[in-house]
């Protein structure tokens, strides 16, 4: 199935509307790579959160991404990267700068699949509340195999690396984006 058909199928099943020209700017590490989001579709991602799904390309790299704004997270977690271990995005360093970040390694289960980075003085208690066991279980066992997410100053970007994940893969990405957005929103507004 062609990528365009997969997106059309997703739009029909989820009631998403076209969001051509959607350009959030370089607001998360992946988006600073300078690519473009194409085939963008917008709709209700989770609860009151609006989301956009699209195909993000830069250089020889293609991703399918879900973007959402969760500004209520800003006072709790300025930067949070949850990257699939082994993800290669470029020949240069990817993510928040090493010298202004630290690895969060408290959850062994999470560490099996993901590299979690935060601000050096991030409140660990808040992270523990965000990464409740059910969320960790879901990330480790039920999220898409090549799934990663990054949250930077209220902007959330969830992504998968497949070139053409098919309609089912896009459905899974949209669902996963909703799960992450809902969890962050819930913990930020509790």
């Amino acid at each position, binding site marked *: 199935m062609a990528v365009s058909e997969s997106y059309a199928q997703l739009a029909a099943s989820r009631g998403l509307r076209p969001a051509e020209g959607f350009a959030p700017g*370089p*607001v998360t*590490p992946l988006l*600073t790579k300078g690519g473009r989001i194409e085939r963008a579709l917008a709709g209700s991602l989770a609860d009151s959160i609006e989301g956009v799904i699209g195909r993000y390309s830069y250089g020889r790299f293609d991703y399918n991404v879900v973007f959402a704004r969760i*500004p209520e997270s*800003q*006072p*709790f*977690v*300025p*930067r949070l990267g949850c990257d699939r271990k082994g993800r290669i995005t470029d020949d240069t360093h990817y993510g*928040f*700068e090493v*010298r*202004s*970040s630290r690895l969060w390694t408290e959850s062994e289960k999470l560490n099996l699949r993901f590299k979690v980075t935060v*601000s*050096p*003085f*991030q*409140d*660990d208690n808040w992270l523990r509340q965000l990464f409740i066991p059910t969320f960790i279980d879901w990330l480790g066992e039920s999220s898409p195999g090549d799934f990663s997410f990054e949250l*930077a*100053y209220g902007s959330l970007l969830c992504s998968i690396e497949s070139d053409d994940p098919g309609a089912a893969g896009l459905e899974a990405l949209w669902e996963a984006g909703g799960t992450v957005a809902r969890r962050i929103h819930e913990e930020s507004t509790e």
Partner: protein
Amino acid sequence: MLALGVASRSVIGLLGAIVLIGMGACYVIASLIAVWVAIRARLGNRHKRWLSANGLRGKATVVSAGTGMTINEQPLFELVVDLDVPGQAPRRIERKLIVGSFAARRIRPGLTMPAYVHPSDPEDVLLVW
């Protein structure tokens, strides 16, 4: 003539010794400064970690953010923020902050970030970016 030659060699030798001692002293002073900077940074980070674990947690909303210089290729921000900490009266403070280049592009008026205030020293504030 011979005495003059010996004297000039002695003077040159003395000057050489002075230069060597001066260079050595410069290296020692530079090393001490580097050690002092490293210790200061380490103590500063230890204090920030303590503050993030034991301080009063609130939020800081950026009112204005200006940057003009960089330190170690990281921009130095002059921030004015509105500090809102539970149990304390809201107040406006100014802080200088060195941030990474990614954060530098995101810090602008309206942005909110976590803030920690020392329980017994309201001037001791940590902004988490």
